[in-house]
């Protein structure tokens, strides 16, 4: 009877399956990752102990800068943005070209009064991205364009949520005028964006 020769072999871990899984996960995370776009102006948010994270809902954001200017970031959805622009156009008696509509749906934040919006949308892409408005969106007792933006957004889709990102140095009267404006349109629940602070 022939002797059974011990076979010469390598102990080897087959990593193919693990590689498959890890690349599948990698692809998933790369595709779902959403990078925070930098804001138009630097905003330092106040800290709070709140553990709640900003929800994923369709979100419009109001930025309030140190010197009291307001920027409005409509929801991400392109078609709904165009619907919003149409509604704002109707309200202020303006019409927009298709190119302006496309630019609007790609724009980051709006920080100009309605009267300058066309000019802002006609700027070349690079300039529009770097544009810092000297005035912001008007928001005082007579001109409430900021509130109109919120109101018309809600008219497009009432499920929108609002988050306010205010700078620590924003003067309180500016914030108050915004709150009062939101109370006027009966929009009473929203979020204040804060940064994490450990409970004392």
């Amino acid at each position, binding site marked *: 009877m022939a002797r059974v*020769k*011990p076979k*010469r*072999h*390598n*102990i*080897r*871990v087959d*990593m*193919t399956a*693990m*590689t498959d899984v*890890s*690349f599948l*996960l*990698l692809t998933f*995370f*790369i595709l*779902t*990752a*959403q*990078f*925070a776009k930098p804001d138009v102006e630097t905003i330092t*948010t*106040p800290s*709070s*102990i*709140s*553990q*709640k*994270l*900003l*929800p994923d809902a369709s979100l419009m954001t109001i930025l*309030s800068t140190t010197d009291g200017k307001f920027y409005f970031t409509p929801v991400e959805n392109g078609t709904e943005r165009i619907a919003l622009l149409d509604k704002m156009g109707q309200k202020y008696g303006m019409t927009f070209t298709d190119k302006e509509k496309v630019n609007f749906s790609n724009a980051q934040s709006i920080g100009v009064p309605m009267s300058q919006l066309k000019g802002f949308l006609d700027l070349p892409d690079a300039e529009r991205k770097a544009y810092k408005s000297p005035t912001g969106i008007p928001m005082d007792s007579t001109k409430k364009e900021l509130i109109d933006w919120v109101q018309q957004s809600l008219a497009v889709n009432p499920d929108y949520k609002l*988050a306010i990102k*205010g700078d*620590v*140095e*924003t*003067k*309180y*009267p500016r*914030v*108050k005028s915004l*709150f009062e404006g*939101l*109370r006027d349109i*009966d929009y*009473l*629940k*929203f*979020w*204040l*964006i*804060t*940064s*994490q*602070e450990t*409970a*004392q």
Partner: protein
Amino acid sequence: MAEVQVKDSSGKGGKVRSKKQVPHVDLTPMVDLAFLLITFFMLVTTFNKPNVMDLGLPAKPKDPKQQPDTEIKLSNSISLIIGKDNKIFYHQQDQAGLNDQTLLETNFDREGIRQVVEQAKARAANKDLFTVIIKPTDDAIYKNFVDMLDEMAITKNERYGVTDVKPWELAIYKRKVGE
């Protein structure tokens, strides 16, 4: 790496054999890199969300003449006046009782405003109805306001309100800060 050479002990001494080559790509560095990237993207997705705090505003009364029927007893409430330069004042007085001595100053520290609120709450006749009234002046900044709301969350005061500072309070406040 992931393969361990097992010495063949049954070799017939000295005879050099050509080694059998198994075509094999070492996947370890690739897997390392893939896991590094997975970790990175996982962390990025969870951490780029900022924190939020809820804020609900009271609805505006439909009829401006109608006064709200919730009268708060002075001893059951405390008024906090947020002033300029991170100053905060508090009192438990009405118009007649408020003067330079009864409007007290504190700060936003743990020993400051938190103790003031907690002591006032401990003194309150009806602790369930103890109300904090936050009155930011026009000199206040947004940070102070958020800090106060945060303080309410820390001290678990469910009942608080934000309102405008009254003219008689403003007069005393202005005198206190030397305007």
